[in-house]
């Protein structure tokens, strides 16, 4: 090998051209391995996943832009090569952009194309998406039945988590429309569902969050508080849910202040302040993410 530092200067024009060509071909070929530059379906998935990341971090503007890009790519996919996954992705982007009617149609079309073996995950996501869009369009019973079915049958955790949230929210909304015994019955059923879920997977923070929300409707603020603390400690899927859970903790703190005897309150407050310190909150009612007033 020529170790002469002036070697570069000694390269002939042809050698330089070959090197340029080699580098250009290498660069060109490497493009095929980049995740963002493959087919439109892959691009749609990439932008969708990116949108989801932004959404989890509570960056609505960037999330909307990414979901719009995902939608454009998915529209291209179904126009050129219609497929169940193409329509599923189109529906998922539309669902996140809150275009309910279009989402419902896309998920319906996804099912009409059929899913192959190994695509059970896509089939369940499409079913969940269909139920969500129907619910947003004002249909009540069918979506609830779909959520219950998926909760019961699905072995996929992301599907179960989403179905659990949708099912619990729908049950709680229904309970709010009733009074007395009917309400109690609906809340008891919601509690049973969330308890079953957290018993099955104690390490899932989101199930504890759901349980805490149901206890709040039952005015059991001690248990609601415990559920919310567990949820915070185990982790929650998005920043928005984490903040909602923090506000639940603060709400329970205020309610318990009204409810507990002075001794009980003293004990509770001591324990509560330990958590506040651990979470690095600025005060008992000021989480770290809250703006200074």
């Amino acid at each position, binding site marked *: 090998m020529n170790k002469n530092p002036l070697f570069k200067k000694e390269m002939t024009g042809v050698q330089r051209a070959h090197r340029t060509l080699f580098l250009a*071909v290498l660069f060109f070929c490497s493009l095929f391995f980049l995740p963002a530059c493959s087919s439109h379906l892959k691009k749609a998935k990439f932008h969708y996943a990116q949108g989801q990341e932004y959404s989890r971090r509570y960056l609505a503007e960037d999330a909307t832009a990414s979901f719009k890009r995902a939608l454009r790519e998915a529209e291209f996919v179904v126009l050129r090569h219609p497929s169940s996954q193409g329509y599923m992705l189109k529906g998922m982007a539309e669902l996140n952009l809150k275009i309910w009617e279009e989402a419902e149609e896309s998920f319906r079309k996804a099912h009409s194309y059929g899913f192959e073996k190994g695509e059970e995950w896509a089939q369940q996501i499409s079913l969940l998406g269909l139920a969500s869009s129907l619910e947003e369009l004002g249909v009540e019973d069918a979506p609830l039945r779909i959520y219950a079915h998926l909760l019961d049958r699905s072995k996929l955790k992301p599907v179960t988590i989403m179905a659990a949230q949708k099912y619990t929210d729908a049950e709680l909304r229904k309970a709010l429309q009733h009074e007395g015994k009917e309400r109690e019955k609906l809340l008891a059923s919601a509690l049973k569902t969330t308890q079953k879920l957290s018993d099955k997977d104690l390490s899932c923070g989101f199930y504890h969050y759901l349980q805490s929300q149901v206890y709040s409707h039952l005015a059991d603020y001690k248990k609601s508080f415990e559920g919310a603390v567990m949820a915070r400690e185990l982790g929650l899927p998005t920043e*928005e849910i984490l*903040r909602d859970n923090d506000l639940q903790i603060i709400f329970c703190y205020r309610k318990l202040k009204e409810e507990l005897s002075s001794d009980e309150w003293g004990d509770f407050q001591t324990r509560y302040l330990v958590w506040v310190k651990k979470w690095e909150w600025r005060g008992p009612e000021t989480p770290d993410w809250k703006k200074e007033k």
Partner: protein
Amino acid sequence: MMESSLEKAVESGVSFLSKVFPLKAYLYFPLLNATLFWALKRAKEWKKEIFSWKVWLDPDRIEAKPDEFVLDFFKSHTALRKAYEPELQERDMETLREVFARLYPILGLEDPFLSALFHEKLESNDFRTIVRDFEKTVGQAKNDIEACGDPPGLIRGLKTFADEMLSLNLDLISQDEVQTVLAEIVKKQLTDKDE
């Protein structure tokens, strides 16, 4: 049909490369050919890979809150309590819940997008205007958000060419066939350019 689409894609590939390497016409065929080689080789496994890449829907927060939680939200915010004093005194839960649905994400959860969008009205504690214009303002802002940030120049151009080639379902035609068409088109393009 396939040939004319291929022709079109190659033409735009050559036209793009002639801008990037105006004096290096000899690079066009090897570059485009290399792209085709990879596209042909990987088209099938590519599809398999894409179809097995799983994407999920994320759960939302629980929106159905008990009355006590809604009331606590109003009572714990001084300016808000003042603004909705009559509704709070009458315990008009229907109105309070409607207001809560719009203001809880802003004043409670401090959604960065919504807080910025209603910044001026928040400064003046004009909650009723925020609630009244909520759907319209948010809808307008979401419509105005433009997707941007694609990498400029070379990478974008090459990506476009690669995407066009992949969208032609290249696995349906043989490498030799495509290569022949490609060679002819590039040659024709260069001859036309020289003339």
